């Protein structure tokens, strides 16, 4: 059995207890999308302010478990100030870490995931992978709109 310490790393719990970039952004100019996890009812809202192909600002809201909330917090830190290409690369690298094969396939040079690395253990808890990917899918939705 994978130990709980693989899942609930200190950095993860820290982002859960002290979420970064929690809140809202005025729409417009920001875009907004909602994501649902039908399994547990978690809801996440992601706001992104994109100008000239760069994510100027990002906020998230909603309610969910420690994994979904901490991932959203870490994601918000990781994507802020990045170009859309860099965000896409981050998402692919993150999903690859979660054993999810994305359309773009494995990137030649995986993005530096920073704090998000702490979520590597989630892959040992297959039920929780959806918790960790919910905010990424919602961000994609936001950026598409």
């Amino acid at each position, binding site marked *: 059995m994978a130990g*709980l310490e693989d899942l609930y790393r200190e950095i993860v719990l820290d982002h859960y207890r002290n979420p970064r970039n929690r809140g809202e952004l005025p729409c417009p100019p920001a875009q907004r999308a909602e994501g649902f996890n039908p399994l*547990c*009812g*978690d809801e996440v809202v992601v706001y992104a302010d994109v100008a000239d192909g760069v994510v100027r600002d990002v906020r998230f809201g909603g309610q969910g*478990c*420690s994994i979904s909330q901490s991932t959203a917090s870490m994601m918000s830190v990781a994507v802020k100030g990045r170009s859309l290409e860099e965000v896409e690369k981050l998402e692919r690298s993150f999903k690859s870490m979660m054993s999810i094969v994305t359309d773009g396939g494995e990137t030649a040079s995986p993005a530096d995931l920073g704090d998000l690395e702490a979520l590597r253990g989630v892959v040992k808890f297959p039920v929780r992978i959806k918790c960790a990917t919910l905010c990424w899918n919602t961000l994609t939705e936001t950026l598409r709109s």
Partner: protein
Amino acid sequence: MSATAPMSATAPTSDLAAATKTDFPLLARDVYGKPIVYLDSAATSQKPQAVLDAMDAYYRTVNANVHRGAYHIADLATQAMEEARAKLQRFIGAASPREVIFCRNATEAVNLVAHSWGRTNLAAGDAVLLTHMEHHANIVPWHMLASERGVELRWLPLDDDGRLDLRHLDQLLDGARLVAFSAMSNVLGTIPPIRRIADAAHERGALVLLDGAQYVPHMPTDVAELGCDFLAFSGHKMCGPTGIGVLWGREELLEAMPPFMGGGEMILNVTTEGFLPNELPWKFEAGTPAIAEVVGLGAAVDYLDGIGMEAVRRHDVSLTAYALRTLTERHGETLTIHGPPEPAARGGVLSFEFGEVHAHDISQVLDTHAVCVRAGHHCAKPLMRRLGAVATARASVYIYNDRSDIDHLAEALDRVGDLFGPQ
């Protein structure tokens, strides 16, 4: 909620579990090297050896398609299926086996009524009355009908203890053609005053559909006493296999309803011009049925009859009282248990919140202690909204659970506090 149930009048709860636990092979396994503590019977019950044996014996010795062949084992298979139907008829106090329709589960049973009775009898402006504690299985079929036919959905509210608030029942029934509600909430355990609601509905000319998915496995059930017109339940929550459930309906209603699905078994005659439906109950059983599962469900009914549903109910009440008391004493400050505080007013379903910890995280930590509880919205999102919760953890008991299972849960919750408590 203050859950201080008196324990004085209750017998030790371990008696029934001590007698039954060894009947369930799965409960002998361990999880991560620890004995399994299975507290998710509201999702599905474990299966006794007798049920597994009956299904195995069916496949090994009798397997043939039913109601078709003129050969010996085909006749045996048909008999096995119809004997099981008769057992279910007796189990729920139905007037005739013609009223016992086999379907996949309670969900399909509700859909059958919505599709067949609903599309025949409901028109724009008619109302269907539901409650705020329904499972999605008793919401979504009516939403589908509402958007297709312009039927109005109304909702009986809940009070803060999770009981139905019936103060405006008469108003809500005005213009209602059907009241469809859970006989025991899968989240709160609430057992509503079924007969009172049914009588009020009938006075106003509305029919009554009971979602018995939680009720039938746990309570002595008599459809005449309940006063309902339809009763839907699943086999897999009452020691039977998955994939088999029952719709009971009053015969004259079923007679007047058109078939649900078309195919083999449900016809008397088919021509290029049309078809003539079969008689009850087969009119509603298109295609080869889940014969082995029917046989398994029949064995489950025998098993429960051997215990006696009165004894099952006494065990549930006693263990629920113990759980409410134990959990509240140990975790009273951080723990919120939803639903009526009196064990006699509820089933053995305890949905709870533990401080600010999300149900998913609770369940994850409990899992490492081999404690199996459900986490999520329990297919009852409107109820979750009413409770102001995104999700709850839910522990639910059945005949094989005893006080030590509750003690394990209470202890494992300490570890949740260790990990997620104030730092």
